[in-house]
C-alpha cells in the first residue's frame, strides 16, 4: 500500500513542472488566439462593402521580377477606377477595386485568387501580369465560374478556351508574322535570328524558327545573348562573316537589345534590323541614339498615338489614355499599362451592355459578342476566340529623328 504513496511523492516536483509547462502553453496559446481573433475581425471589417458595388479583384505583380509589367498595370487600374467612379460608376454602381500584389509568385496568385473569389466574392479578376500565374489560376477560375481577364500573353491562356478566361495582350506569333510579311515585301529570304536570353526571347525564337518556312524564309544563324550583356561585337562579327544574311531579327525585351544595334552600325553593317514589340519603350530609343534610326519593329499603336490620322478608330482611346496617364504619373506610357486598361474596360463595357447586372453568364456572353476598341487594337471576341486581336492590332514601326513613327 505504501508503494504508490512513495511513488507519488517522487512525482510531485515533476508534476509541478508539468503544470508549469502546461500553464506556459496555455498562456502562449491564449496569446495566439487573441492575436488571430483580432486579425480576423480587422479583416472582416475592412472587407465590408456597400450593397451594389461591383467588386473587381486584380492580381498584379507590382514587385518582383515582373515589376516592369505590374507597376504601370496597377497605376492604370487605379487611375481608371477613380475616373469611372468619379463619373458616376457603371449605371450608378461604383467599382470597388481590390488590388493584390502577387510579387510575380504563382503560390501567391493561387492564394489571392481563392481569397478574392470566396471571401471578397468579387465579380471578376483582372491580371495576373505573368503567364505562369495566369495558368496557375486558370482552372480555379473556370471551376468557380468567375471571370478572369488576364494581362499575360501566352497562347495557352485561351487555348484550350475556358469559358470564363480571356486575355488582352496580342499573341507573340502575330508579331512574328508581321515581321515576315514585311520581309516578303522587301524581298528578304535569308535571315539571322538573335534573341535575348529571357522567357520572352525564347518564345520569340521558337515562333521565328517555326513560322519562317511558311513565308519562304530561311533562318541561317541562331544566337542568344545574355540579358546583362554590355558588348555584343563578337556576335556581330560572327554574323557579318556570313555574307548571305539579308536581315537580322533581334527579338528581346531587355535593354541589351540596343547594344546589338549599336555594335552592328559601329561595324558598318547596314542590313535591315528588325526588332520585336519588346522594343516599344522610348527609353531604349534614347539610349540607342542614331544607331536605331530606321530599325523596323511591330507594336501596338499606343506608341504613335499622337501621329495617328484623326479618323483612325483607336485614335481617341489612345490619345486620352496616353495624356491621362502621362499627366497623372509624369512618366511615359507603356503598352503594358494598356493591357490593364483594356482588361478593365472590356469588363466595364460588358457589364454596361447587360444593363449593369452582375450576372456572370450574361457578362461572359456579352464579352464573347463584343467589339471593343482598346489600346491594344480592335478586339473582336467570339466563343472560340477569347483573345480577340488579329494581326491588324500591330503596326510596323520605325525610329525617325529619335521618335517612334509608322514605317512607310
Amino acid at each position, binding site marked *: 500500500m505504501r508503494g504508490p504513496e512513495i511513488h507519488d511523492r517522487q*512525482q510531485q516536483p*515533476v508534476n509541478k*513542472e*508539468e503544470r*508549469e*509547462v*502546461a*500553464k*506556459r*502553453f*496555455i*498562456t*502562449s*496559446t491564449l*496569446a*495566439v488566439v487573441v*492575436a*488571430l481573433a483580432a*486579425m*480576423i475581425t480587422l*479583416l*472582416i471589417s475592412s472587407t465590408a462593402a456597400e450593397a451594389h458595388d461591383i467588386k473587381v479583384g486584380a492580381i498584379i505583380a*507590382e*514587385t*518582383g521580377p515582373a515589376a516592369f509589367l505590374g507597376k504601370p498595370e496597377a497605376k492604370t487600374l487605379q487611375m481608371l477606377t477613380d475616373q469611372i467612379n468619379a463619373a458616376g460608376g457603371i449605371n450608378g454602381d461604383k467599382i470597388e477595386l481590390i488590388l*493584390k*500584389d502577387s*510579387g*510575380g*509568385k*504563382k*503560390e*501567391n496568385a*493561387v*492564394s*489571392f485568387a*481563392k*481569397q478574392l473569389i*470566396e*471571401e471578397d466574392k468579387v465579380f471578376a479578376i483582372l491580371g495576373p501580369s*505573368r*503567364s*505562369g*500565374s495566369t*495558368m*496557375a489560376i*486558370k*482552372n*480555379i477560375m*473556370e*471551376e*468557380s465560374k468567375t471571370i478572369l481577364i488576364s494581362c499575360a500573353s*501566352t497562347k495557352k491562356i485561351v487555348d*484550350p*478556351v*475556358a469559358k470564363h478566361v480571356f486575355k488582352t495582350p496580342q499573341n507573340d506569333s502575330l508579331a512574328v508574322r508581321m515581321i515576315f510579311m514585311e520581309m516578303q515585301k522587301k524581298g528578304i529570304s535569308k535571315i539571322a535570328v538573335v534573341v535575348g536570353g*529571357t*522567357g520572352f526571347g*525564347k518564345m520569340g525564337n521558337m515562333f521565328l524558327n517555326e513560322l519562317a518556312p511558311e513565308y519562304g524564309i530561311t533562318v541561317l544563324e541562331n544566337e542568344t545573348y545574355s540579358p546583362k550583356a554590355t558588348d555584343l561585337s563578337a556576335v556581330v562579327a560572327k554574323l557579318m562573316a556570313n555574307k548571305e544574311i539579308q536581315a537580322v531579327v533581334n527579338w528581346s525585351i531587355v535593354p541589351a537589345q540596343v547594344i546589338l544595334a549599336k555594335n552592328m552600325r559601329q561595324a558598318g553593317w547596314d542590313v535591315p534590323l528588325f526588332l520585336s514589340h519588346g522594343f516599344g519603350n522610348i527609353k531604349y530609343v534614347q539610349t540607342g541614339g542614331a544607331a536605331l534610326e530606321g530599325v523596323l519593329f511591330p507594336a501596338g499603336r499606343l506608341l504613335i498615338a499622337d501621329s495617328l490620322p484623326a479618323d483612325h478608330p483607336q485614335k481617341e482611346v489612345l490619345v486620352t489614355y496616353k495624356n491621362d496617364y502621362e499627366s497623372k504619373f509624369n512618366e511615359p506610357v507603356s503598352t503594358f499599362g494598356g493591357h490593364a486598361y483594356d482588361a478593365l474596360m472590356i469588363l466595364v463595357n460588358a457589364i454596361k451592355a447587360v444593363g449593369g447586372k452582375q450576372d456572370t453568364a450574361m457578362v461572359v456572353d456579352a464579352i464573347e459578342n463584343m467589339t471593343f476598341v482598346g489600346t491594344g487594337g480592335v478586339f473582336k471576341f467570339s466563343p472560340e476566340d477569347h483573345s480577340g486581336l488579329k494581326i491588324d492590332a500591330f503596326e510596323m514601326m520605325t525610329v525617325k529623328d529619335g521618335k517612334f513613327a509608322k514605317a512607310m
Partner: protein
Amino acid sequence: MDQVRRIIPVVFLIVFIVAVQLATKYTGTPFYLTQLTMSAYYSLVVVGLCVLMGYAGQISIGHAGFFAIGGYISAALTTHNLLELKDNAFVSLLNKYGVLVLREDLYGETLLTVHPWYACLLAIMTAVIIAFVIGGPVLKLKGHYLAMATLGFGIIIYQIVMATEYFGEADGISEVPSFNILPGIELGGGFEIRVVNYYIAWGLVVFGIIILQNLIHSRVGRALRSIHGSEEAANAMGIHTSRYKLYTFVLSAAFAAIAGVFLTHYNGSIGPSEAGVMKSVRYVAIVAVGGMAHLWGALIMSVILNFLSLRGVFGTYDDAVFGAILIVIMLFAPEGILGLGIFQKLKKIMSGGVSGKTPELQESKTGQKQV
C-alpha cells in the same frame, strides 16, 4: 513523465487545429482554411529546418531548393503527356505495371501521365538522394562557408528550373492534378475538399512534430546538441558527428520535399519563386523568429507569418518584411520572440507573485542581452 511533458503540447496543438476548423465552420468563414493549409505545409519545412539549425547548429540557405525538387518532380511527372510515346518500350513497360494513369483534363484532352502516388514517392526519394550526395561534402564546412555552399545549392536549383523546358522555365508548371492519397481522401485544391485537405496538412505537421520531438529527446538529440555546443568536444566524446549532421540534414530535406509535393498538388501549380533565394531566407527568418532551438516557437511564428503573407496583408512589402524581421530579431532577440520571456513576465503579472524559477530565467536573459 518526460513523455507526458512532451505529449501535452501535441494534444494542445491537435485540439487547437480542430477548434480552428470548427470555429471557421460555425462563423461561416471556411475560406481561412485555404491559407491555413498552405501555411501548414510551409511550417513543415520550417520545423525540419529548425531541428537542423537550432539543434544540430547547421545553417541551410538552400531549403527552398529541396522544396522545389519535391514539388517540381511530382508536378512534371503528373502533367507531361506521355500519350505520344505510348509505343516506346520503356513507357509501355511502365504502363504495363500500372505506373502510368490515363486521365482527362478539364478541357476534354486525354493525358497519359505517371500516377501521382509514384510521382510523389519518386520526388521525395530524389530529394533525399540529392541531400545525401551534397550533404556529405557540404556539411564538412562551417559557419559562413556552410551558409555560402547551401546558398549556392539553392541558386543552382533555381537556375535549373528557370532554364529547363521540362520544368516550364519562367512559367513553372500548372494544371497539376489532385489525386486520392488514400482511398476516399483526395489531395487537391478544390473548394469542396478543403476541410479534408486542412486535416491532411495539419496531420502531417503533427506527425512531423512528434517525430522531431522524439528525435530531439533521444540519444541522437543529445548528440546533436553537443555538436551545436562544440563539435570538437562531441567528437572527442566518441560521437560520430559527421554522420549525425548528415542524417539531420537529410531528414530536414525530406520534410521540405514532402511539403513541396503536397503543396504543389494542393495549389495545382508550382513556379520558380518556390525555389528562389528569398524563399530560403524566409524559412531561415522564421526559424530565427521562433527561437532557433524552439520547435513550438518556430511552428507558431511560421503559421502566423505565412498566414498573413499569403493573405497579402504585407502588400508590396512582403519580402521586405521578412528581411526586416530577420535583422531585428538578430539584433534584439537572438533567442527568438519566445526567448524574450514575454510569457514569463505576463505570467508574473497575472499571478501577482514570483514563482521560484521565473526570476532566475529572466535574469539570465537580461544578462545575455547586456553582453
